[in-house]
C-alpha cells in the first residue's frame, strides 16, 4: 500500500499575503427601506463597499417598507440616492452588480403575510445569489416598530447560516423601555448577534481617540486628575430639527444626542486602557466609565430651547414655530451638564458637556484642558498671555487634533500668545475618510461588535439620562431661552462660571 505524502496543515502560500477583511456570503434586509437614512446613508455606504470590493461576492439586499413599489422602482430610487449622496464616483458596472441582488418587499407588518414574503424573498436570494442562509436585519425604523419586526423575524430564523440584527438609535426612550427592548430581542437573538449602532463610533476620529491615547506614550501619563483641569465636550449642530418634529418632540436633545453620542465620547475620553481591542475588552472598559458617572444633580444640568434668530445671516424661526411642533412645547433643544467620573483617575475632574441645535456652527470637539503652569517665571505684559494648554480633538468637521501652546511673540518684552499646533487628519492621510456607516456595516458583516453598544452599556446610559431628566417633570423653565445662532442659554455659561471656568472660545 503506497501512502500519500503528508500534507502540512497550514497553507504556506498564504504567508505574507495581507489578510483581507472579507465577509461571508449574506443578505442584508433593510427595514425602513424608503426612509431617509436608507437613501442618504445605508445604500450609499453599501455602494462604497461594493466599489472597493469589500462586499462578499454572494450578496443580496432586501428593502422592506410600507410603500408599494416594484423591485425595479426601488432600484431606480436607490440608484438616484447613490448618485446624490455617495462619496465615490458612480460606476454603472459596480451599481449593476449590486442592483442585481436587490429585491423589494412592501409590507406594514399589520398584515400577517408580510414576514412570510420577506422570508420567501430571502430564500430565493439564497438560491439565486448563493447567500447561504446568512442574514443581517437592519432595523432603520422608528422605535415603536422595532418590537414587531424582532418578534416576526426572530420566529422565522433561517435554518442555515448566521443571523445578525442591527438596531438603530434611539434604543428605547428610558431605562425601563430599553430593558424591555433588550429582553424582547434576547428572546430571539443572542447578545453576540445584536449590533446596536451608534454611528459616532464608526467615525475615524472617534476611533483615533483610542489610538491617540493608547498608541502614544506621551499622553497617557498625564491623562488624569493630576494634570487635567477639566474636559469640555461639545456636540453643536447648526441645523434645526428639519422634518423630524414627530421624533424630536418626544426625544429632545437629551435622548437624541446625550444618551448615545455624548456619553460615548465621555466613555472614550475617560476609559482605562483595554487589554486588547476585542469587542468585550473595549466595551467592558466603557461600561465601567458609565457605572462610575456620578448622578448629576439638578444644579448640574441646564436645558434650553431655541427661539427665532439668525444662522449665517438668514432669519430662522424658533423651535415652537417649526412645523408640527406644539406652540407651547417644553422639548429641550439644548442640554449642558457637569459630569463627574468617580474613580481613581478622574475624581473631582469635571466633564462639561453640551449639545444643542441651531448653534452658530456645526462642531463636535473634545477639549482636554490641562492645569496651568504652576509658576510663570516671566514678568508678563498681560495676564491673558499665559493660558493653559488645551488638547483639542476635532471629531467633525476638519477632523484632527490640535494642541494649544504658549509661544513668545517676537519683539521686545515678554508677550506670550497661544498658538495651535495642528494635525489635520485629512492632511496627513488623504485617502478620503470612509463614512461611518461603511465601517459599521462591514464590521457587522464580519461579526465584529467592538464598535457597537452592548446591552449593559445602553442600560447604564439610560440610567444616567433618566437621572438627568427626572427633576424636569417638576419645573417649567421659560422657553425659549436662547436665540438661534447663539451658543445656548445663559444658564450654561453660569454652570461654568460658578467654577471660575468658561466654555471654550470659538
Amino acid at each position, binding site marked *: 500500500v503506497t501512502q500519500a505524502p503528508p500534507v502540512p496543515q497550514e497553507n504556506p502560500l498564504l*504567508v505574507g499575503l495581507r489578510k483581507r477583511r472579507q465577509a461571508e456570503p449574506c443578505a442584508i434586509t433593510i427595514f425602513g427601506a424608503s426612509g431617509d437614512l436608507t437613501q442618504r446613508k445605508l445604500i450609499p455606504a453599501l455602494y462604497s463597499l461594493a466599489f472597493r470590493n469589500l462586499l462578499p461576492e454572494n450578496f443580496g439586499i432586501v428593502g422592506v417598507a410600507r410603500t408599494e413599489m416594484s423591485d425595479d422602482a426601488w432600484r431606480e430610487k436607490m440608484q438616484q440616492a447613490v448618485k446624490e449622496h455617495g462619496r465615490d464616483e458612480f460606476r454603472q458596472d459596480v451599481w449593476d452588480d449590486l442592483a442585481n441582488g436587490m429585491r423589494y418587499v412592501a409590507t406594514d407588518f399589520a398584515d400577517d403575510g408580510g414576514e412570510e414574503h420577506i422570508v420567501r424573498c430571502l430564500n430565493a436570494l439564497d438560491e439565486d445569489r448563493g447567500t447561504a442562509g446568512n442574514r443581517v436585519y437592519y432595523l432603520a425604523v422608528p422605535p415603536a416598530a422595532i418590537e414587531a419586526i424582532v418578534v416576526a423575524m426572530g420566529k422565522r430564523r433561517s435554518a442555515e447560516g448566521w443571523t445578525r440584527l442591527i438596531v438603530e438609535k434611539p434604543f428605547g426612550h428610558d431605562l425601563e423601555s430599553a430593558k424591555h427592548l433588550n429582553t424582547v430581542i434576547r428572546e430571539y437573538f443572542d447578545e453576540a448577534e445584536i449590533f446596536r449602532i451608534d454611528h459616532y463610533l464608526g467615525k475615524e476620529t472617534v476611533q483615533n481617540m483610542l489610538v491617540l491615547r493608547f498608541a502614544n506614550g506621551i499622553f497617557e501619563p498625564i491623562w488624569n486628575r493630576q494634570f487635567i483641569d477639566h474636559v469640555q465636550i461639545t456636540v453643536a449642530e447648526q441645523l434645526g430639527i428639519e422634518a423630524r418634529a414627530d421624533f424630536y418632540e418626544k426625544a429632545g436633545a437629551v435622548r437624541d444626542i446625550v444618551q448615545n453620542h455624548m456619553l460615548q465620547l465621555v466613555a472614550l475620553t475617560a476609559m482605562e486602557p483595554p487589554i486588547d481591542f476585542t469587542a468585550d475588552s473595549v466595551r467592558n472598559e466603557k461600561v465601567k466609565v458609565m457605572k462610575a458617572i456620578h448622578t448629576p444633580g439638578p444644579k448640574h444640568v441646564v436645558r434650553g430651547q431655541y427661539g427665532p434668530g439668525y444662522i449665517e445671516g438668514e432669519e430662522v424661526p424658533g423651535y415652537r414655530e417649526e412645523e408640527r411642533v406644539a406652540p407651547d412645547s417644553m422639548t429641550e433643544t439644548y442640554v449642558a451638564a457637569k459630569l463627574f467620573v468617580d474613580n481613581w483617575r478622574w475624581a473631582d475632574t469635571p466633564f462639561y458637556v453640551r449639545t444643542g441645535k441651531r448653534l452658530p456652527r456645526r462642531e463636535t470637539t473634545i477639549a482636554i484642558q490641562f492645569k496651568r503652569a504652576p509658576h510663570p517665571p516671566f514678568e508678563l505684559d498681560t495676564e491673558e498671555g499665559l493660558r493653559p494648554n488645551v488638547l483639542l480633538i476635532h471629531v467633525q468637521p476638519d477632523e484632527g487634533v490640535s494642541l494649544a501652546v504658549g509661544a513668545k511673540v517676537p519683539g521686545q518684552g515678554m508677550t506670550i500668545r497661544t498658538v495651535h499646533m495642528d494635525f489635520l487628519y485629512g492632511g496627513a492621510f488623504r485617502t478620503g475618510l470612509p463614512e461611518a456607516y461603511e465601517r459599521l456595516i462591514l464590521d457587522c458583516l464580519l461579526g465584529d461588535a467592538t464598535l457597537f453598544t452592548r446591552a449593559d452599556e445602553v442600560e447604564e446610559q439610560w440610567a444616567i439620562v433618566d437621572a438627568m431628566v427626572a427633576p424636569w417633570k417638576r419645573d417649567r423653565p421659560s422657553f425659549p431661552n436662547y436665540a438661534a445662532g447663539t451658543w445656548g442659554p445663559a444658564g450654561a455659561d453660569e454652570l461654568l462660571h460658578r467654577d471660575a471656568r468658561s466654555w471654550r472660545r470659538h
Partner: protein
Amino acid sequence: VVENVTLTEVERQLGELRAAAGEPDELPRLRTSVMTHMAWVPERWVEAATETLAGLAERHPSRTILLFPRPNEERDALDAEVDLRCFLRGGEEREVCSEVISIRLCGKRASAPASVVQPLLVPDLPVFLRWRGQCPWGAPELEELVDVTDRMIVDSVEWPDAERAYARLADILDRVVVSDIAWARTEPWRRAVAELWPDVAGAEEIRVAGPRSEALLLAGWLGARLDREVELRHEAAGEIELVEVDGRQAEPVRQDRTTSSDLLSDQLEIFERDRPYEEAVRSFSSAAT
C-alpha cells in the same frame, strides 16, 4: 530652475515659500509630511516619473526630493527648483501643502547623492526611495542612497535582465527593505494560487503568461514557499493573463485596474519586510551560484 545652487539656498527658499503661503486674512496653510520621498530619475524616466508623482502627492503628503542625475554634463553643479504643492479637500477650510525639491546633479555631483539629500531629509520620519529603471548594482550612487533609505521601491518590470538583477538585489536585502511594484501586481495571482492548496503541495511546474519579471517572481515564490524545485513555463504578455500550476488554473478575484500612482502609493503605506518576496528573490541568488 536655479542653476548652481547650494543646499543652504534650497533651505532658505523652502522657508520663504512657507512664510509666504496664505494671504494675511486667510488661515495659515498647513505643512504636513508623513515621510521623505526620494526618487532617482534618470533622463529616460522623467516623463513616467512626473506622471506618477502627479497622482501621488495628494495621497501621501511628504517632502519629495526628485533627483535627476546628469553625470555626462561637463560642469559639476547642483541645479534646483523648490515648489509647494497645495491641496484643498472638500469640506475643509485649510489648504495642506507639501514640498517638492527637484535637483539636477550635474557631472561628478551625480556620484555622491547621499551628501546632497541628507541635509534635506525630514527628521524622525521614514525615508522612501523610488529607483526608476535598472539599478546600477555596486555603483556609488545606489550604494550611498540605499544607506540613507528605510525602504527602496523598484519595479522589476523596468529591468532588462530581471533574473540576474534579482540575484544582485538579494545582496542588498540585509541593508534595506525593498518593495517591488511587479511583486505587488502578482498579489491577486498569488492569492488565487494559494486557493489551490493543498492540491498544489507537490507542484512541479508553473505556467505564466505575462511579463518575464512577474513570471519569475511567481515561480521563485512558489518554489520557496513549497521548498521544492518548481519549473517555470513562460509566455510573454503585457500583463499577467494566465497562471497555471500543474495544469490547474488560478482564478483571481476581479481586480480594478490600478494606475502606477496607486501601486506606488500602496507600497508607501507598508513598513514591514516582505519575507516571502525576499525568499523569492533569494531563490535566484542561490540558482545563480
